[in-house]
């Protein structure tokens, strides 16, 4: 029965009426898997007035796009997303279905896999194919990144997982790529939601949402007081980044919870993570040690943060950060 399931699918994300770049990261993941399996890579695109953007998914690596374009899908709502995706999966039977571990992916996939009666692996950082068994090998950190687990879904289909945003670069756009766009329809009852979106309240916080940020300037106890977080905002502003914080700084109300990095906050993988006055408790390292480049500034030469740092500056962040800002401005 598993042989009836063929192909690799990715769940595209739309924010503010545009396909969000995490959708293209998923295609980079999916392309490798589809090529190993010698099957097509398909992107699923749900939304309203988004059909004309389907071509962008082909340019970014998809062979096929399944589009459901409906007013009811203008905003994410887990119930109708699940019903629509269940209908599509049962119709076309992909062997693998991946989504990004965003608030949307981490909501819809845990609802969808129940209906499809299959397995789901959260927040993977590596995916590959065991070609001998034709199975998806899903690798994910657990227990604060202290453990890496390799997970398979041998008997159920599709094999489903979410992957951590920013853990892979999108493929280079190739305007010469061709593919097929299928406009799908689903039963009207699949588009009837009991959930109502009343309003969206945007964050007043400047900069990109933390998980999307290419550069994060994060502060901890070594920033000494709330007012000093203004320095981090200034530095982040100069670098085009966002501000993060340790749990300690959030607990002291120096920064909002939405900026908390670590085990009980967010896991982030920016290109550059600048840790200012953060000692680097295991729980914090769990949320940021996979960043491409880590720069740490701390007055304690033995601070654990230095173990994961590419550049360790032993000194007071309250002196180093202003000096750095001064140099960047001049």
């Amino acid at each position: 029965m598993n042989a009836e399931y063929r192909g690799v699918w990715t769940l595209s994300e739309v924010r503010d009426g545009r396909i969000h770049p995490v959708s293209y990261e998923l295609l980079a993941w999916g392309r490798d898997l589809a090529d190993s399996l010698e099957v097509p890579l398909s992107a699923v695109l749900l939304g309203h007035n988004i059909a004309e953007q389907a071509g962008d998914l082909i340019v970014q690596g998809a062979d096929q796009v399944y589009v459901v374009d409906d007013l009811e899908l203008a905003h994410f709502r887990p119930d109708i997303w699940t019903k629509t995706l269940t209908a599509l999966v049962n119709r076309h039977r992909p062997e693998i279905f991946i989504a990004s571990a965003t608030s949307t992916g981490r909501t819809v996939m845990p609802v969808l896999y129940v209906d499809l009666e299959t397995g789901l692996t959260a927040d993977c950082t590596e995916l590959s194919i065991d070609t001998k068994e034709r199975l998806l090998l899903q690798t994910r950190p657990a227990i604060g990144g202290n453990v890496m687990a390799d997970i398979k879904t041998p008997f159920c289909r599709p094999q489903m997982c979410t992957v951590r945003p920013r853990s892979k670069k999108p493929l280079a756009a190739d305007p010469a790529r061709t593919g097929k766009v299928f406009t799908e329809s689903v039963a009207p009852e699949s588009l009837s939601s009991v959930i109502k979106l009343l309003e969206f309240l945007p964050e007043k916080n400047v900069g990109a949402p933390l998980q999307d940020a290419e550069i994060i300037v994060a502060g901890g106890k070594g920033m000494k007081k709330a007012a000093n977080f203004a320095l981090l905002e200034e530095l982040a502003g100069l670098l085009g980044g966002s501000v993060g914080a340790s749990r300690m700084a959030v607990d002291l109300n120096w920064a909002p919870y939405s900026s908390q990095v670590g085990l009980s906050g967010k896991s982030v993988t920016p290109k550059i993570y600048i840790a200012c006055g953060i000692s680097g408790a295991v729980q914090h390292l769990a949320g940021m040690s996979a960043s491409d480049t880590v720069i740490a500034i701390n007055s304690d030469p033995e601070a654990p943060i230095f173990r994961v740092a590419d550049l360790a500056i032993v000194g007071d962040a309250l002196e180093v950060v202003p000096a750095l800002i001064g140099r960047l401005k001049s």
Partner: protein
Amino acid sequence: MRIGVLVKQVPATENVKIDEKTGTMIREGVDSELNPLDLHAVEEAVRLKERLGGDAEITVISMGPPQAQKAVKAAIAMGCDGGLLLSDRRFAGSDTLATARTLAAGVKQAGHFDLLLSGERATDGETGQVGPAVGEILNLPVLTFVSAVESFSDGYLTVQRAVEGGHERVQAPLPAMISVVKEINVPRLCTLGGKLRAKKTVIPVLGADDLPLPQEHLGLAGSPTKVVKVSYPQITRSGKKISAVDNPDGAVEAILSLLGARGAV
């Protein structure tokens, strides 16, 4: 009004060990605690009860080994009314689907609930899948990443969801399932009275035979995902170390040159 809170007992994260053969956690001899993120779900349930003038009954439901009773009691000490523990050797090795099916069966057994709450995720498995999955099995609207409960009346629930770039205000009919994030509240400390009450509360325990679940949905056998290998990564980088005390200019220079090399300036 009946409110259910799903909680998990987790190992205190610093001293976790894994059985290399089965890929599951060794729980014996490791200090355990109520999942820190579940405290916020318990707190929110207690606050909702207070908002309703006490006209609600809160039941804490957990699946785990017999000693997970402690986690259920910790929640009762914060102000919940009663508990239920699902415990059976046959539940061992459950992945998130098998866990969700077992918990959903337990919830059903405990009767009708107007609202179910869970934490965002457990700090050991870190999947965040069980709460939403239980909601879907019970055919409830599922609202995740809830950062505020605005209203809870007339058969409707209005909440805020913390999503990328802001908050969504969302409404759903009751009964419903919500998973809450840490920013929703600051959990209270339990009082001596609460602790005494928890101590006296008898927590019923249900096993596999007490739940209307087919054998093939239980434990390791009922788990579609299989852990095939476990490894312990050592993320260390042998970074350059510079003292900003001895060489302040050199330190800033080194940061600038690394930022430059990475295309940030």
